[in-house]
């Protein structure tokens, strides 16, 4: 390259610079452009060599006449939607091809807060683009006993980056980027989570999650009730609607019940309830701790399938 070192340099910065460029080049062949005919194209990741592409659902505005443009900026393959999961905003596409360069996936412990991370995308016709940041946060969770995580990063996500990979300095994918998911923050669904959703979409066309069939509202629990029932929590979920023929109705849950816990764990906001349900499959049984007319009840519910 012929670049001379500036005086006093030990070459570390140049070495780091080359490693980062190398990581980008390693992952680049697996980053594709998803064209749904709208003005804003999306980015996608080659997930499996036999033609499975991962991207975000919101970036793919229709189900027909889709095309995936490979890293050579020339090969355009017609694509179909194998499935969408609105909950994680993931879509899986299929193209007729084999031997495609699938992205290398990082392991569960490879993404730590503070690690350098690169966001890759192919927005518009500008070719491969990359931005740099660190892993700013990592939220761990479990689904049916399998550990997963969600990351956020301070790397700038350019428009059109959603659906692309967040990679580490080894060029391995640590997450699937989504600009819209985090309400402006740059969020990446951890690779294990993306893998689980992709598997479910490929085999069943959707992700089945535990479904209760209840509408709730967060309320502050009255002090006399808390004292009478010896409750440690300050808030609970008031049941304001029960879907007909739903698992909730079948369990005996009714309008006016105060939902306090799931399987013994206090629930004091709607997101917590949702994450309890998300973590379970249809057919699983859970115990709901409920306060009704001043006394405590435990209801057993068999979670159903989200419609």
């Amino acid at each position, binding site marked *: *390259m012929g*670049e*001379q*070192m*500036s005086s*006093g*340099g*030990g070459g*570390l*910065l*140049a070495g*780091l*610079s*080359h490693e*980062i*460029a*190398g*990581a*980008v*080049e390693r992952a*680049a062949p697996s980053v594709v452009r998803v064209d749904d005919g709208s003005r804003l194209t999306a980015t996608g990741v080659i997930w499996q060599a036999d033609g499975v592409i991962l991207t975000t659902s919101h970036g793919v505005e229709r189900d027909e006449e889709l095309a995936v443009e490979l890293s050579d900026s020339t090969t355009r393959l017609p694509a179909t939607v194998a499935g969408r999961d609105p909950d994680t905003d993931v879509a899986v596409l299929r193209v007729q091809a084999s031997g495609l360069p699938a992205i290398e996936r990082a392991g569960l412990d490879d993404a730590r807060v503070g690690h350098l991370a*690169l966001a890759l995308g192919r927005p518009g*016709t*500008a*070719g*491969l*683009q*990359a*931005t*740099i940041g660190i892993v700013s946060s990592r939220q761990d969770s479990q689904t049916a006993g399998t550990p997963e995580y969600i990351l956020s990063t301070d*790397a*700038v996500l*350019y428009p059109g980056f959603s659906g692309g990979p967040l990679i580490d300095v080894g060029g391995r994918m640590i997450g699937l980027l989504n600009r819209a998911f985090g309400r402006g923050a740059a969020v990446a669904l951890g690779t294990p989570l993306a893998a689980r959703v992709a598997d479910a979409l490929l085999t069943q066309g959707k992700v089945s999650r535990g479904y209760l069939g209840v509408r709730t509202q967060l309320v502050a629990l009255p002090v006399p009730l808390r004292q009478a029932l010896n409750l440690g929590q300050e808030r609970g979920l008031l049941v304001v609607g029960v879907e007909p023929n739903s698992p909730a109705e079948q369990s005996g849950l009714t309008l006016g019940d105060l939902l306090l816990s799931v399987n013994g764990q206090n629930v004091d906001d709607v997101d917590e309830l949702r994450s309890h349900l998300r973590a379970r499959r249809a057919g699983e049984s859970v115990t709901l701790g409920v306060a009704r007319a001043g006394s405590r009840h435990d209801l057993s519910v068999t979670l159903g399938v989200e419609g």
Partner: protein
Amino acid sequence: MHSSGALFAPLLAETGALADRLRQSVVLVRCGVGGSNGYTGGHGSGVFWPAAPLLTNGDALVVTNDHVVAGAADRRRGHGRIEIELADGRRLPATVVARDRENDLAALRIPAAPDLPPPVPIGDARNLRVGELIVAVGNPFGVRGTTTLGIVSGAPGSVTWLDGNGESEAYGGNRRQRGGGTNERRRDLLQADVVLAPGNSGGPLANAHGRVVGIAAMILSPGIALAVPAHVVEQFLASALAAPATAPRQAVAA
């Protein structure tokens, strides 16, 4: 895995040294229109660029954006004054000796003086790979010598700029792309995710070796910065200053 500090400390030391060297050659460019009590115009950044062999009388050369000096350099609008402020605080008068509106570049001549900062070493943006580190120094919001780090985000030459008939804002150069303009032209621009702000325009972007590969020109949003590549600056200077002259001349578009 390395123990903490094994790489981090020397890496930071190197980055700090690179930034210090750059900063000493970065100036604040102030433009005013009239006024006896100082400058009321806009400001931006500039950097000392190698003057030889273009200027032969010992004068120094500062490169900045055309939009930074546009208000003061247009003589028809009255007495425009331009001064630069060095990193050590010294203020020196400057004259515009060349302008290139299409590439958004301007060259300022600084009369020879003792202890002027050295010009920066120049690199080649055309060799850059996506992912290479970029260090930008400038004066965002007037905060002197602010340094930011990012990477090359788009391959050099991959940015298409649609030159519509809209004027860029004189302050910071933010501009929206307009579709379907009659003057669609592929401008050779360097794209980096360094976080720049109004006031950074005209300041240098350097590679990991400390060589300047571009001049900040446009901020599409924080984290999306476009810069004029060094070779475009060199072409502008060579054609505008080919013959020694004391009068400012319009640069020939490359």
